[in-house]
């Protein structure tokens, strides 16, 4: 390739399985939020305020891109918005600590109070994210904005007490499916707002949807069904989708191959090299250990990143959520290993 691709073209081409000059190095936000304390202290654009204000969210996302050199803007910085809109109580956390579900609003799938469509577009936190996506897409049109979404099962288990929810998947299958459909429809509405306002890619993280928790049968019946429902609708809107699956995946390899996502992002202990040979069609994303990013040295990070390159991973990214105390120098070594080597 003679001309250097823009970061946006590179990512979109990779997701479309077209040739590129080198892999993109990204961090999608949401579960994989890279707004580390060091950056926020330097710039004064801080969490938790930036979870609620579009001005601050835009400024912080731009700071993160600028300081880390990740080749994307990634927002929001948490996984609580979807559940908040649908009723759960949220604790916004602190500078160091990400927001979390304080209390799931329902005790069982049978108690769920179904909100009408349109709930997402009326919510102030959704509005902050969507406005921020719009602004970021105008700051630099060469850099893709990734809208991060909490997956269907994780959102569901943030609305109904997780233990009751998991039992309900077997005991109350019909009610569980109705509930999952409901959750999915709202997620589709939220993702559409992201896409319509300038997001180039949607990234779905669904940490409750693991093989270890669900086993192959439930993973297929619920995780695959509803992730694919969501992905299919996003594809109709002509936007590519990254899916992040947590855990070791051994129990659910055949089910993973059924996912319709354009790239599959995985945890650090999964060998993406093996995965590529097992599922030939997969576009791989990952998977630098976030433990190494926090506790390692820039040299070690650089070396490990070169291994990901050697393994021909399609999209280079952290393997999981970053600790907010991750040193900026380590993140810089990570992105530098990709960008510098290729000029």
């Amino acid at each position, binding site marked *: 390739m003679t001309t250097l691709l823009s970061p946006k073209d590179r990512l979109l081409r990779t997701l479309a399985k077209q040739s590129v000059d080198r892999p993109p190095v990204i961090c999608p936000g949401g579960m994989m939020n890279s707004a580390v304390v060091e950056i926020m202290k330097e710039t004064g654009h801080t969490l938790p305020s930036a979870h609620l204000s579009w001005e601050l969210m835009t400024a912080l996302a731009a700071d993160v891109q600028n300081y880390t050199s990740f080749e994307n803007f990634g927002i929001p910085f948490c996984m609580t918005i979807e559940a908040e809109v649908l009723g759960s109580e949220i*604790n916004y*956390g602190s500078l*160091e*600590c*990400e927001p*979390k*579900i*304080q209390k799931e609003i329902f005790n069982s799938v049978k108690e769920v109070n179904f909100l009408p469509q349109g709930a997402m577009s009326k919510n102030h936190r959704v509005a902050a994210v969507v406005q921020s996506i719009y602004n970021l897409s105008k700051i630099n049109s060469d850099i893709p904005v990734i809208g991060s979404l909490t997956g269907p099962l994780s959102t569901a288990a943030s609305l109904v007490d*997780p*233990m009751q929810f*998991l*039992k309900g*998947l*077997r*005991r109350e299958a019909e009610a569980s499916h109705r509930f999952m459909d409901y959750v999915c429809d709202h997620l589709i509405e939220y993702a559409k707002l992201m896409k319509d306002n300038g997001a180039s890619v949607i990234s779905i993280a669904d*940490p409750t949807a693991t093989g*270890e*928790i*669900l*086993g192959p049968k*439930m993973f297929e019946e619920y995780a695959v069904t509803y992730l694919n429902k969501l992905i299919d609708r996003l594809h109709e809107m002509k936007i590519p989708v990254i899916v992040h699956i*947590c*855990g070791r995946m051994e*129990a659910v390899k055949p089910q993973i191959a059924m996912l319709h996502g354009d790239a599959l992002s995985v945890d650090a202990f999964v060998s993406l090299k093996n995965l590529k040979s097992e599922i030939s069609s997969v576009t791989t994303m990952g998977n630098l250990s*976030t*433990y190494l990013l*926090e506790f390692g040295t820039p040299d070690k990070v650089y070396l490990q990143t070169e291994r990901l390159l050697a393994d021909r991973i399609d999209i280079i990214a952290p393997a*999981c*959520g*970053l*600790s*907010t*105390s991750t040193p900026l120098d380590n993140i810089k070594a990570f992105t530098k290993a990709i960008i510098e080597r290729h000029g």
Partner: protein
Amino acid sequence: MSELFQKLSDAVVDMDEDLVEELAYRVIEEQEDAFEAIDKGLTKGMDRAGKLFEEQEYFVPELLMCADAMNIGVEILKPHIKVNGLREKHKVVIGVIEGDTHDIGKNLVKLMLETSNFEVIDLGRDVPPQTFIDRAIEEEVEIIMISSLMTTTMDAMADVVTNLREQGMKDRFKVVVGGGPISQGFADKIGADGYSKDAANAVRLCQKIVGEVV
């Protein structure tokens, strides 16, 4: 062994709450020993469910349903236990560390420990490091168990051990850590006494710590 106990054990493994209920009442009617029915029937069934979980035949939903079935039987049989049949329980305190509200793993460990004759003080989720220590002292437990699913909260886990050391209480309690991002290496690094990769192993580890070899 009574055939009823085997049936109770099977009903737990089969997640059949109605059958457990029916069998538990039959134990009482037929004047079988209630403690043995729990120990050799219900608990045995839960042990088998735990093994199936380890072997990845059962997953979290199945294990939770087995536990529900077991608990229905325990509630029915408990009032009929002769007092001398009770063993002394070992006490542990358990919780999800501050910053993290993912408690599926913690709840599984709690459930498996309770079925193995431990008394579990559950601090819930999002628990500050010092609270683990304060409650451990208050409840006079033997083991502090800390769970975390998020890499972002691993530092706070280390604080529990550090605080214990600073307060001169490192030898008084054993600290066991677990959860998705945790490894034996991390446990060693922060000076925890044990690491367990899953709920079944957590039970064996705790039994070893309190000297109840199985």
